[in-house]
């Protein structure tokens, strides 16, 4: 409570003081920061294209050798996407991995010597700071056309309290709330920088405030992203294969644990638990219908097929570790058939 009172009381002061500092520069534009940043932004096209589900989003280069940070969404469902660089070069991007808790993903393209952001060199910002937001909102830019840039300010530094459709958003951590309308269709995965073009954070998905129902404009601070991005690049948080080359004689199956997944209708059917068999290892471990299986033995499982495959790699008598998402909560459970 105390901190809230403090920030509420000092917000006007902060704005007032910053006001004088920023007015000087206000007469100049942001051409330099914009031209510096544009080459690091990419356009991503993948799955989607139905009503209200755009088949495109934004991303930005985080390494010279083609690692790209973006949001984890249905656009990446096919596993490969088309990445278009600022200069119009097109690449096939493969999903290197993702972090279901922050809903970010890393894509890799085969290229070198690319302009990029260094996640470790990201800066923090205070309410009142001027920002620039770069993204391919509404898919306006194609080919060698530049991403769109919006300007605004950091309005608040707070934790996200949002919903996506009828569900609470998965990420509930720190965010910067912005006074520009940054979170438009296709903008997710874009970048927020300060007026010098230094990285502040990643533009999040289109979410509504849980209480007011208003659309939120926010970015996730880079400090929240760098750990996961590093994990993905170093081989953690990688996807489970759909097929197993090495299958034990008696492999594990979800059914042996008392888990029935939802019917596997498409390649990327999200692995929600449909039914939990009474008096099974799953029921004893308090697994519930509607839980989403996000990891099996440390491998990400974006689909029913990857869950089946990941379990099939384990002998049915071995213990198995499963991570479940229940609402906004992530639960890690160890299961064993005999238990």
């Amino acid at each position, binding site marked *: 409570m105390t901190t809230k009172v403090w920030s509420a009381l000092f917000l006007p002061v902060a704005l007032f003081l910053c006001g*004088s500092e920023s007015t000087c520069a206000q*007469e100049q534009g*942001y*051409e330099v920061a914009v031209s510096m940043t544009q080459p690091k932004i990419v356009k991503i096209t993948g799955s989607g294209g139905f009503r209200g589900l755009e088949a495109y989003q934004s991303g930005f280069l985080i390494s010279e050798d083609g690692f790209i940070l973006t949001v984890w969404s249905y656009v990446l469902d096919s596993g490969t996407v088309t990445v278009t660089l600022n200069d*119009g070069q097109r690449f096939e991007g493969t999903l290197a991995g993702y972090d279901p808790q922050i809903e970010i993903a890393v894509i890799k393209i085969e290229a070198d010597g690319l302009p990029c952001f260094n996640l470790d060199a990201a800066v923090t910002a205070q309410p009142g700071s001027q920002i620039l937001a770069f993204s391919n909102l509404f898919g*306006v*830019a194609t080919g060698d056309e530049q991403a769109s840039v*919006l300007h605004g300010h950091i309005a608040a530094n707070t934790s996200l309290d949002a919903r996506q459709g009828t569900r609470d958003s998965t990420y509930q951590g720190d965010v910067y709330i912005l006074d*520009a309308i940054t979170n438009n269709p296709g903008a997710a995965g874009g970048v927020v920088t300060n007026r010098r073009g230094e990285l502040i954070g990643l533009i999040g998905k289109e979410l509504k405030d849980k209480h007011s129902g208003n659309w939120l404009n926010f970015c996730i601070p880079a400090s929240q992203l760098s750990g996961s991005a590093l994990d993905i690049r170093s081989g953690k948080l990688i996807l489970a294969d759909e097929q197993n080359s090495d299958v034990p004689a008696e492999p594990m199956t979800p059914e042996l644990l008392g888990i029935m997944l939802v019917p596997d209708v498409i390649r990327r059917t999200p692995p929600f638990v449909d039914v939990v068999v009474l008096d099974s290892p799953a029921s004893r471990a308090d697994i519930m219908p509607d839980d989403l299986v996000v990891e099996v033995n440390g491998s990400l499982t974006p689909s029913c097929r990857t869950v089946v495959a990941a379990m099939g790699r384990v002998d049915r008598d071995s213990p198995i570790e499963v991570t479940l998402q229940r609402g906004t909560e992530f639960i890690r459970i160890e299961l064993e058939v005999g238990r």
Partner: protein
Amino acid sequence: MTDSQIVRALARAIRWICLICASTLNPLTTPALAQVEVSEAVLEAERQRIETIQRASAATISVLAPGGNGGGSGVLVTPDGFALTNFHVVQGNGSFMQCTLPDGLLYESVLVGIDPVGDVALIKLLGRDDFPVAEIADSDNVQPGQRCFAVGNPFILATNFQPTVTTGIISGVHRYQYPSGTLLEYADCIQTDAAINPGNSGGPLFDAAGRLIGINGRGSFEKRGRVNVGVGYAISINQILHFYDHLLSGRIVDHATLGATVGTGESGEVLVTNILESSDAYFQGLRFNDRVLKFAGRDITSVNQFKNLLGIFPRGWKVPVTFEREDQTREIIVRLTGVHAEQELIELTAGSRGSMEISTEYIEVPDDEKQQLYEYRAGFANYHFNLQKQQDIHESFLQNGDFSTSDEMWRLNGVDSSGNEVVIALADEQSGIQMDGETWLFKPSDEFSDQSGSPQIRALMGLHLWRKMLVYGPGEYGDTISFGSLPVSRVELARDPQAAGQLVLQMTDRKADVLKATRGITETYFYFEPATGHLLAMDLFPDVDVPATEIHFSDYQIHDGLSVPGMIDLVTPGSQIQRIELKRFEFSAPVDGGD
């Protein structure tokens, strides 16, 4: 933090707040309490910005739909009241509408011209010849990240006639926004995050210096309703300048197409994927699978970019096109054709616009003076302005002398580039030309197209019509309209050393006032130099879907009190350029002296 610490902190904070409130609410009487020193440079920058916005806003207008049914914005560009707005703002308003200015006055205005594809309309405010006007910038120099501001009448808030100012930055340039059907296409447009809301349509987008860079007209919206989400688009002022004289001629102006489509090749190159055999591009030599390298002076690297560029030109505009075929590069000049057939465009705009007749339902019936500012003719937004432009062109031409009494046979003697004699005889009943040891005759009483077979006869037909226009003027020539202005090409010696000594066509930066004249099915475009009234060139189409025969006139000199060309270049399709140096003029040659 202990309770006493909190209390002390709160007390400190409250003292601060009080100080700030005092200084903000009443800065003049309590300067000592302000505590915040603002440098003079900052204050000066602020003063400048206020001044810039005030100066730019003065030329911004609100366009009111009849009966108070919404409206939009606009911007004055000439002191005598011509103002730009969107086609979709004037759509359905009839020919007269009311506009307000920040000076607090209500003005009557009349519709002048419309560009339904580009979503632009030109109107003229009445009653003053000293309207404030917007200074115009070169919108090709606009860069992303630059500051800009929009002025207009969002949500029709300007009930006190004072416009709303929203500031932002340039979010993107050279944007392409697809048309709905074939109308309202935003090509090569400017994207901004300055708030563009319903009612801002037609209003100006200014750069940081308060110069006009575009006309705001649409935004990306989608799921959040029709309010600004930081993504607005403005039609670039450079595009509008291509169309301005066309609009001024009171027409319903069409956009251009190449008569060919392009697609992306395997390595991203832009290739011709389809081409109409009746298009000028085809006549000039462009073929299927040719690689387009340059269009209108800009390098072409993507299909989108090509569409962007094509979308900024009116029908009839000539552009240089560079293409590559089997490692050979060629540059041609292509006359762009229209997106629509003439009747099609009339129907498309009439269907959505309702009658262009004067609306009497909502606003007062215009008085006599206003009635004189409108004339109906199909295919025109307001034919009155076309007649006026035709008159202006003719008056400017009359600087060259009065040809109307020289209505007998003209006899012109000259030499071609090989030094051979050329004789041209032109008269109402029959004309002839003698060159290369042969004689050709042309009789206007016969069907024009029957005689249009040989290039020489087409050229002769052009010269016959040239005399006709000079002697009788646009009024008696036939069906004549002002077409606006178009860039003019010129015959000159090739710069390419491989083609040294050859005559080639080159585009120039100059624009000419164009009269389009129709006799039967023969269409002729006459290019007049605005300042001198000299006829610079003619494009003759003896039939539909045939290439043009061009005649270029240069080296003007005075002869018997009449200004006449010393040089004529005949550019016939499929043949070389024939240059004739004229040596002798007779304007009343005896008939039997002709051929």
